[in-house]
């Protein structure tokens, strides 16, 4: 009972955020509602005792992704237009897809054996330390590969965003300025 009440509150909060993100009319409101959903998910992780996952979720999704979404909205569309909530004809198909995904996930969780408390392995005494050692020893190669990929992606993004140096022509006096 003591663990289910916070879980219920957080679950309702997360779902409400998700529903609001899809139904609200203003794009920025949707982004903020999505952030509530992210934060609720982080709190759920914390509630489960997964400290690192919860805090990383907070740091990455609330701190970075939400800001990115909001910036993207403001820089591309002005964020002012009140789009009608779109009930596209593809709605029923989307619902079927969502249900199928949910069914697959539920089946995977149910058959993995983790749904039953007895099968859950005990957490190590110092989870952060254990996680650090796992990342730095056993999984160090995937970690490095991901790091390299992200660096490459970042450099690529910078190159795409760089203003191209045009040859100095009389038509473009601004590019000639230092």
């Amino acid at each position, binding site marked *: 009972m003591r663990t289910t009440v916070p879980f219920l509150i957080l679950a309702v909060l997360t779902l409400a955020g998700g529903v609001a993100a899809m139904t609200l009319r203003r794009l920025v409101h949707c982004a903020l509602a999505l952030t509530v959903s992210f934060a609720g998910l982080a709190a759920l992780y914390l509630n489960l005792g997964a*400290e690192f996952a919860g*805090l990383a979720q*907070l740091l990455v999704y*609330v701190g970075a992704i939400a800001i990115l979404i*909001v910036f993207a909205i403001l820089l591309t569309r002005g964020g002012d237009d009140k789009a009608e909530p779109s009930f596209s004809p593809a709605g029923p198909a989307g619902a079927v897809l969502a249900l199928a995904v949910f069914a697959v996930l539920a089946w995977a969780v149910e058959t993995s054996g983790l749904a039953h408390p007895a099968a859950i392995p005990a957490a190590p005494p110092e*989870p*952060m*330390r254990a996680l650090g050692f796992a990342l730095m020893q056993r999984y160090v190669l995937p970690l490095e590969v991901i790091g390299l990929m992200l660096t490459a992606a970042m450099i690529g993004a910078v190159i795409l965003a760089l203003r191209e140096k045009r040859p100095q022509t009389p038509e473009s006096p601004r590019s000639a300025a230092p």
Partner: protein
Amino acid sequence: MTALPAPTADQIWVWIKAWLVIHTPAPFQALVSIVCIVAAIIVVFASLFALTVLLERKGLGRIQNRYGPNRVGPCGILQPIADAVKSLTKEDIVPRSADHVVHYLAPLVLVAASFLAYAVLPIGRNMTAVNLDAGVLFFFAIGAASELAVFMAGWSSRNKYSLLGAMRAIAQMVSYEVPLILSSIAVVMIAGTLSTSAIVHEQARTTHGIAHWYAFTPWGLAGFILFMIAATAVTNRSPFDLPEGESEIIAGYFIEYSGFKFALFFLAEYLEMFAVSGLGITLFLGGWSSPVSFLAWIPSWIWFFAKLLVLICCFIWVRGTLPRLRMDQLMNFAWKFMLPMTLFVILSAGIWRFLPVTVAGSAALGAVVRWLVCALVVLLPYGTLARTLESGRKIEKREYRFAD
């Protein structure tokens, strides 16, 4: 229930809380325990806010060769009360075209996020509100919420200046969070833990009567300076207060807030400053520990708040001394100077960790070698970087065409 700790001066607050908890009926003990901690944090840091506002106004007045507030109470010491009454009684104006819900929520989210950060700060021996295994990570994760609150305030006001201010604030916070986190990584590496209380315990050990503060090591000193510079920028303090820039965008993201909501923004800004200074103290200045062992009789919480006040005075001093940066200077400084320097600090900390403590059988020689090598790893790049960034730039006497 555990037994009461000894009511010494050092543990007096822990003792009072334990006494209160023991003398409540069992079903309410958890609640009373939580309320005690939360109330204490809110009361103490809100009063520190009042004290700091007074200190800042007085100090800035002195620096700018004027008196500062001197009308309310003797020498103006009751000025914070007058300020509070004023902001409480002012009319709360919401622009007609503003987004009312978001406009209302923004200051609340900001203040709540600022207060949450105190949960992991050890303000005295056994005085950490929540002893998280990943305390440092928690601190930075909660700090992320304040960026969103700033955006909410700037966007919902429907004012171009507030939106510009919010954009500036977010760009600045995101850029300076990188050196802030990277400089604390050096400490996490050496301490081998993310828990704030464990980091302080690690620094409270003494050798020959001197504590093992990380600020006493070359990488720690450099890291501390970088951390505090980044902290100044993340909390939007002068000289990094572009988001407020009165002369160009009036007051930035809280321009459309009045009355108590404005006071909440003000409060949140100072709370963030205290919190990040508290983290700096925890990471580099030994938290609640005393620097030398013969001063260890002074209660731990007094040490923490003494260090905090010193850092606050430095903030005020810097604000009264340095002019505001330009946006391009701000960004260049963050990415071209702060980021490489913090990486070299991490390298230096790594070398510090793996260099032998004794060289040729002598501990003193080993310490000197370790010190020199680690200091060089930080100082050489500093010199090169500073020269490279300065080269090609001519500093000459400015001519004011319109002022003469």
